[in-house]
């Protein structure tokens, strides 16, 4: 069953999203009711999407339009077979697709249809990606994770999950290590100058970065926004918000301006929407800097699909009760450097896994360095796997191996 969609249903969409939705209205009218709002959820955010995401939305719509009636019906058989109640088959969801997605998820879990949904979604995505040209990145991707800031001595065995995949360097000269890494990513930004292709994320205050195409987000830089968000949540709870779901809906609807972001300029709007989503959709990102850095790298690889990410993990605050954290009073915050190193070691592994899911993974490189120490690990096509090296090496040399 499809939905009787009209142009007026897109009135609440931002301008670019409205244009895209309206120009494909005939297609949208032919898609199954269980699927259309999910597609529109992507379209609705079009104005704040990264170029890579816009490209994927455009290609997806083009692919669907290219299908014959019979092929389209075949592709969506699984979605048509989902058993949904009348309340979820309603054209009103076209105007609020985000809310549809939350309700659909809850319904599918409660009726034991979630596995079937994953199956049909996966079939759909495979068909879409098979039809899309596999565009290699403009240059091999590079991920760099700097972990362990503030840790003097460590007994935790680092890089265990990386070991089968690359070379463990145990005698790296740490002098000027961070400076060298920052200069390297700035050089990469200069060599491939395009917006949102190069990122520097810091779990503490950011170091100066010297290229306009190297976009920077730091946990410390977002402190006013984080605190504004926590105050908003605190207020909602004290005003008696209905429950966790109502709170999550509130967070999903939140606009960057409401927590103090400046959305001026095209890129400013995209970055501030992205940063807002990190704080409102990520779990733990509002409280723990290590969770923030890991989640940011995940979302960047997945959404912006950049060429370069340098992520520096910094000590997170010691675990404290949520009530106390919600107060936003950070006067007496204690840091947990040793625990943060363990978090970051795992976070770096996830960062690498997410990088590996992108096109061109076979040529991509990844470097992880224990900050101010002599240990580093490199995964790249030119270095052997499952290998240890005790040779004295410079950071420049390691970077040269990554191409």
């Amino acid at each position, binding site marked *: 069953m499809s939905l009787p969609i009209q142009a007026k249903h897109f009135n609440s969409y931002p301008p670019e999203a409205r244009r895209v939705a309206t120009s494909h209205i005939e297609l949208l009218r032919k898609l199954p009711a269980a699927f259309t709002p999910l597609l529109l959820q992507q379209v609705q955010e079009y104005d704040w999407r990264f170029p890579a995401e816009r490209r994927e939305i455009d290609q997806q719509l083009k692919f669907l339009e290219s299908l014959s009636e019979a092929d389209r019906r075949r592709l969506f058989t699984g979605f048509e077979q989902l058993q949904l109640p009348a309340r979820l088959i309603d054209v009103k969801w076209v105007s609020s697709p985000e809310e549809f997605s939350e309700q659909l998820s*809850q319904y599918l*879990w*409660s*009726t*034991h*249809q*979630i*596995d*079937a949904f*994953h*199956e049909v979604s996966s079939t759909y995505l495979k068909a879409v990606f098979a039809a899309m040209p596999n565009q290699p990145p403009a240059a091999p991707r590079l991920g760099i994770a700097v972990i362990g800031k503030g840790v003097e001595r460590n007994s935790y065995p680092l890089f*265990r999950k990386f070991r089968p995949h690359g070379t463990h360097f145990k005698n790296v000269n740490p002098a000027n290590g961070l400076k060298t890494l920052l200069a390297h990513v700035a050089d990469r930004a200069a060599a491939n100058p395009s917006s949102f292709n190069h990122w520097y994320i810091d779990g503490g205050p950011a170091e100066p970065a010297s290229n306009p195409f190297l976009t920077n987000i730091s946990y410390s830089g977002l402190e006013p926004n984080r605190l504004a968000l*926590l105050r908003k*949540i605190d207020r909602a*709870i004290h005003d*008696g*918000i209905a*429950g*966790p*779901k109502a*709170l*999550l809906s509130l967070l999903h609807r939140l606009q960057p301006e409401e927590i103090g972001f400046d959305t001026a300029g095209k890129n400013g709007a995209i970055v501030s929407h992205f940063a807002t989503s990190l704080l409102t959709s*990520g*779990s*733990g*990102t*509002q*409280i*723990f800097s*290590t*969770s923030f850095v*890991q*989640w940011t790298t*995940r979302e960047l690889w997945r959404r912006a699909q950049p060429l370069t990410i340098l992520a520096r993990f910094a000590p*997170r605050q010691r*675990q*404290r*009760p*949520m*009530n*106390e954290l*919600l107060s936003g009073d950070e006067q007496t915050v204690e840091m*947990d450097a*040793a*625990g*943060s190193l*363990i*978090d970051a*070691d*795992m*976070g770096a*592994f*996830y960062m690498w*896994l997410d990088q590996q*899911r992108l096109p061109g993974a076979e040529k991509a490189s990844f470097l992880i360095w224990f900050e101010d120490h002599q240990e580093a690990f490199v995964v790249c096509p030119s270095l052997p796997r499952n290998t240890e090296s005790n040779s004295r090496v410079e950071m420049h040399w390691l970077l040269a191996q990554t191409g």
Partner: protein
Amino acid sequence: MSDTWTLKASEISESVSRSRREFLRSLIGAAYYRSLFSVSVPPSTPGSQSPNRRAIVVTFGGGCRDEETFMPQGQQNIPHLLMELLPQGAIFTRVENRGILGHYVATASLATGVYETFDNFASVPPQFPTVFEYFRRDLKRPSSDAWVVAPSNGFNRIGCSDARSFGPRYGAQVVLPKRFLKQALASKKTDDYEHLLQDNYETPLFIPQIEEPRISLREFAEVLNLSVTDFVTNALTLSSPDELSLYVAKQLMRRYAPNLLWITLHDMDIAHAGCYSLYIEAIQRTDRLCSEIWRTIQKEPEYAGKTTLFILPDFGRDSDGSVGGNGFQHHRTGDARSRTTWLLALGPGIHENTVVDRPVQPLDVVPTLGALLGFDPRMARGKPMSELL
């Protein structure tokens, strides 16, 4: 739907199970059951079992993965389970949860033997009768004979269903220790104590407002046979909410010696905050607490030699390879690893050192308890685990 599960998830869960099984066999030189040798269980007649038979169920309301437990790199986190408890019990390596992967609704499903489908975050009772109601109704037991100790306010309705012919008059008494501690500390500056008051790691920014408990703080202290001051003093020596739950459970065991006690541990759900080190610390603590529960059983005369202990996570967590998830942090993808977990049972009559390969479901716990204790869980949809009977 079930075909999808059978064809794909089942293969993965089999592989998870195989890795556990192979490791466990090498570790303890265990005998193991094949389903071929399983025998069917005769239907139990209510009241036919020894009235002294007792059961304690410990669930982890925060799943854990093999990577951090049974796989080689995780074994250091569970020394008590591996070296002390496993050799004395039977482990089911393949417990497949096909229900909703939310802690309250999954625990309710465990307690009813039916996959409950209510909203995980709603303060509602289970739809089907709980194990406590079957137990108390069939065996005519008093309310002091069935207790639940749970860490999170969200579990305040777990003790009884709203099913017809059952309900509150047959339910378990539910103790939420943190709630009483909070009451006791209400007039004090709480900075030193608040680390015990966390609730609901899945939505950590939300603190639920729930109805007032049925018993007052003073009555609660009386239940524990303590003064409020003693309760607070003892509680404040503990490092986590699960430590507090165990402390309360021990007091209940000494005071009432309930035949049916259900303890839900929750610390490891801190994983939702995304900090791997905190998740690992919580697993290590849970491992230690499980050992402490078993030792308490052996020490208490009312329990020693007549108690079956069940230990199981309510489900797993997402695998690193699941694209839609974020690894250990959540259990949202519904992938096979997040659905596949294990169950360890110890107690009289249970073959020690045993690994059971065949797939079972969390729903099988209630029928097994029914067969052990002698009540008829007539609406439960699982099957008794013959290897434990």
